[in-house]
């Protein structure tokens, strides 16, 4: 669009034609107040706060609905405008209780700010205020009617943004009120209720304290918390979440999660899990002391020193007596990249075993193999919000990857994107789709073959075979296609589909997975046959020399084989970090009776109760590092909360290595001759930002003084792991996401195990909006929400 020139408050501005005046002003640093305007949602012009004076127009105009025009001359702050806004606020305050001292929004309330600015707190109205009691609409959402200023943000957010349409406006005039979709007459409790996805976006968008969350309401004040931006620990979308934390009796507790600063990959979006499900940290069954099984068969709390000594001694004994193949390691898809890397390095270089695996929720090894030799073909999460055309095969983003679904809906709404959905179930995203193809229950492989040109596969691919040709033509006719693949597609099916995508000129692909670091766990080599970066075990390259004398020159046992080995007595010890394979894979507890089992977890899970040693671990909100989402977007994890007694998985691994008399410096490269520089505490620049330290950080040279510094391992990941060599430190440290691809070196042939009949070890978690594996069971809020919707929800995984 051509640019137009206009003048605001005497400043000459330029913006593309069609830009709304309010946005153009904001971009130029001129803030126009508004309650009802919300970027990305439809225009309402309900609040009249954004009125401005535009020359040659008879009355004050709303800046939120006026597009800029050539030669426009605008005033945004004159006594006339201030008076109009003051009058507006007086009307808005007609029924408002002004209970700011107890209101959740106090201190970060847009109405409060405006009332202070325009001084309208004294009302001329003599009528009594229309008071109504606070209502509980769901386990997560409360509504305080008198505080509401009827800006319609929540109504639009729910309808347009979430495609749920659970909120509406009822009655009219001064008795108008926001209403949820279950009326009192049809609610089992006799009170109004919400039947929705419980994302809490309405609470987030509310400019005042009318909508509040059960987790946060009346708990604290915004200025009493620390706000830490980190990554949500639940699904594979990798949403950034700003956690509000405050001091508690045993550390720092999280009281709120949101992303109001729009700083991350997810803009302001969070789902129920990101927003409310941080309470697992304070679950009463949370372990805070190491447990060691005694001679009487009971687990007894002991000191860290004692527990670590037992583990170190036993691991060393098994390694030295049986060799590395007598040990097994199972990692997690919720630990950081640094921990995942360290864990596999610990296994390969300290335990000397390749028996290492994790619960795979998508087939990233095949994905990497299929992409071999290409670059720039993998999509970032950011592409889902801007792509012109999207093909979604399998998966159910609305329930399993809510940010992806949000982005796709936004893309359709704002960019008129064309979405093609092929799924065996009528998933909700079909409502935004240009075409929906119902795949037969086991037809994804046939569909992949059909898309790739094999017409014979048509019969088995779709319920309506006649719809196939048009679907394929439409997809192939797209100039820029984003192909999103659900985790139903694995092995050769996945390979065929990726090859089809690669055959299109400008297509990009992404594989969706279930947990925050499912992708990272695979990238970091928590696999029996692949080293970090999908480096095949037959050609270990520099890993063979880096990893020392114990490095196993063989492929190891996968997760199920490890349990088979345990059953036949061949596994002397099994080290499980942040996983619950006994429940997930329905392992018979008797299998492990002759195996020394060490479990690192937050709770006594089905696996942990069988353990000989249980080590209480920190969760993702209690540690630092980085994670990689489904798409390959690398993000920084920052420590927000703290819990007395627990330790990060990173620290525990390092300490076990130490107890095995391993030279820790060869495991974690710290203190390599660098001395600490404590920055500019003296002299002319004292008190300023330590520019030297910033420079060191940006150039990957900051001193790593502690063996527990995850960045020491990040250095090694940066140096050794294919695909991660391109990461930019400053990007990462500033909390920005950056895209990494599994293979960057075009000329390097990656052979992943000549055996093409790899066993399908992928077990999708099939989480819903209100479940999150074992972790979700320990979140009280998720349990409540799951209980509310479990009758109508789709069946969930065993755990």
């Amino acid at each position, binding site marked *: 669009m051509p640019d137009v020139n206009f003048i605001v408050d005497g400043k000459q501005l330029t913006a593309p034609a069609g830009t709304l005046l309010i946005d153009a002003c904001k971009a130029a640093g001129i803030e126009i107040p508004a309650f009802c305007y919300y970027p990305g949602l439809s225009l309402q012009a309900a609040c009249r706060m954004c009125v401005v004076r535009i020359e040659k127009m008879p009355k004050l105009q709303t800046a939120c609905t006026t597009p800029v025009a050539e030669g426009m001359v605008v005033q945004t702050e004159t006594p006339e405008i201030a008076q109009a806004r003051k009058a507006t606020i007086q009307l808005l305050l007609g029924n408002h209780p002004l209970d700011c001292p107890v209101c959740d929004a106090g201190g970060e309330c847009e109405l409060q700010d405006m009332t202070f600015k325009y001084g309208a707190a004294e009302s001329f109205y003599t009528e009594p205020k229309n008071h109504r009691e606070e209502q509980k609409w769901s386990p997560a959402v409360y509504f305080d009617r008198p505080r509401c200023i009827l800006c319609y943000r929540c109504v639009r957010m729910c309808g347009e943004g979430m495609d749920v349409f659970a909120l509406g*406006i009822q009655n009219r005039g001064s008795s108008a009120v926001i209403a949820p979709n279950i009326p009192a007459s049809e609610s089992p409790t006799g009170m109004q209720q919400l039947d929705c996805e419980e994302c809490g976006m309405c609470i987030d968008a509310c400019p005042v304290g009318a909508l509040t969350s059960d987790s946060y309401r009346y708990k604290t004040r915004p200025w009493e918390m620390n706000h830490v931006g980190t990554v949500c620990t639940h699904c594979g979308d990798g949403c950034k979440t700003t956690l509000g934390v405050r001091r508690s009796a045993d550390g720092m507790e999280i009281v709120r999660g949101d992303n109001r600063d729009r700083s991350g990959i997810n803009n302001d979006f969070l789902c129920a899990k990101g927003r409310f499900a941080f309470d697992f940290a304070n679950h009463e069954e949370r372990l805070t002391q190491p447990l060691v099984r005694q001679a009487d068969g009971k687990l007894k709390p002991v000191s860290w020193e004692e527990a670590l000594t037992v583990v170190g001694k036993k691991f060393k004994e098994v390694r030295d007596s049986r060799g590395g193949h007598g040990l097994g390691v199972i990692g997690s898809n919720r630990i950081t990249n640094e921990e995942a890397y360290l864990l596999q390095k610990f296994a390969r270089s300290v335990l000397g075993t390749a028996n290492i695996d994790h619960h795979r929720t998508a087939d990233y090894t095949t994905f990497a193999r299929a992409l071999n030799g290409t670059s720039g073909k993998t999509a970032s999460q950011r592409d889902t919000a801007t792509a012109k055309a999207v093909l979604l095969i399998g998966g159910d983003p609305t329930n399993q990857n809510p940010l992806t679904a949000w982005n796709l809906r936004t893309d359709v709404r704002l960019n008129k994107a064309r979405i093609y959905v092929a799924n065996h179930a009528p998933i909700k995203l079909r409502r935004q789709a240009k075409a929906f193809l119902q795949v037969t229950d086991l037809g994804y492989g046939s569909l992949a073959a059909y898309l790739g040109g094999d017409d014979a596969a048509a019969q088995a691919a779709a319920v309506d075979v006649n719809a196939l040709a048009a679907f394929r033509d439409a997809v192939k006719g797209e100039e820029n296609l984003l192909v999103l693949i659900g985790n139903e597609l694995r092995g050769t099916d996945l390979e065929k589909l990726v090859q089809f995508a690669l055959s299109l000129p400008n297509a990009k692909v992404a594989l969706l997975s279930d947990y925050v670091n499912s992708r990272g766990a695979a990238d970091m080599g928590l696999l029996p046959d692949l080293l970090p970066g999908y480096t095949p075990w037959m050609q270990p390259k520099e890993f063979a020399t880096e990893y020392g004398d114990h490095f196993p020159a063989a492929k190891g046992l996968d997760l199920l084989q490890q349990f088979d080995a345990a059953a036949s007595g061949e596994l002397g010890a099994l080290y499980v970090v942040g996983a619950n394979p006994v429940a997930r894979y329905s392992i018979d507890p008797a299998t492990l009776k002759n195996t020394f089992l060490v479990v690192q977890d937050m709770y006594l899970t089905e696996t942990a109760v069988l353990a000989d040693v249980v080590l209480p671990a920190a969760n993702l909100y209690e540690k630092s590092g980085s994670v990689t989402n489904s798409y390959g977007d690398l993000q920084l994890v920052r420590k927000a909360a703290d819990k007395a007694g627990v330790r990060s998985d990173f620290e525990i691994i390092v300490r076990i290595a130490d107890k095995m008399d391993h030279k820790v410096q060869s495991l974690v490269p710290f203190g390599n001759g660098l001395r600490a520089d404590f920055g500019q505490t003296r002299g002319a620049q004292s008190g300023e930002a330590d520019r030297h330290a910033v420079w060191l950080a940006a150039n990957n040279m900051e001193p790593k003084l502690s063996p527990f510094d995850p960045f020491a391992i990040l250095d090694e990941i940066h140096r050794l792991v294919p695909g991660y060599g391109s990461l930019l430190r400053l990007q990462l440290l500033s909390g920005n996401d950056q895209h990494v691809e599994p293979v960057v070196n075009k000329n390097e042939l990656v052979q992943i195990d000549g055996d093409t009949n790899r066993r399908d070890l992928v077990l999708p978690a099939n989480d819903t909006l209100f479940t999150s594996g074992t972790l979700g069971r320990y979140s009280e809020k998720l349990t409540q929400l799951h209980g509310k919707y479990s009758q109508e929800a789709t069946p969930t995984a065993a755990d």
Partner: protein
Amino acid sequence: MSAVTNTIFSPELAARFDKLVTLYPVKRSALIPMLLYAQDEVGYVSDAVVHEIAQRLDLFELDVRNVLSYYSMLRTKPAGKYNVQVCTNISCMLRGGYEILDHCKAKLGIGHKEVTADKLFSLEEVECIGACCWAPAMQVNYDFHEDLTPAKVDQILDDYAAGRGKDVK
């Protein structure tokens, strides 16, 4: 054959609704007439009415309720057999509309939007009913009564109570 199986409406009304949805470029435009016709037949807009209308127009029930709650002539609770609507808008007010209303309140023993115990009468204070020339006026169901005096109101209400009144629908 109605578009909705198990309709709660009479066959005539169901047929009328089937036609109504085809008359507008956008289906939901038929919402307000449907609510009014349904109210006339059922007596009020019940949850079942909301449900069927939402189904007929492909709307969420919430959308129907949003509209329903906006209009004061649509009611969600049963009215009396004879719904007495007394106008107190400016012309009627000047000519004694409030006296008529107070008289009705005293005679029927009920207030605004209330129903007598025998469910025969309900009373409503309404805005202009377009009978300013003959103010004060009131409307009983769809029948108009003009140039009212308390005595005339007594007569009218007695007629209705005795079953002699016109019941215009």
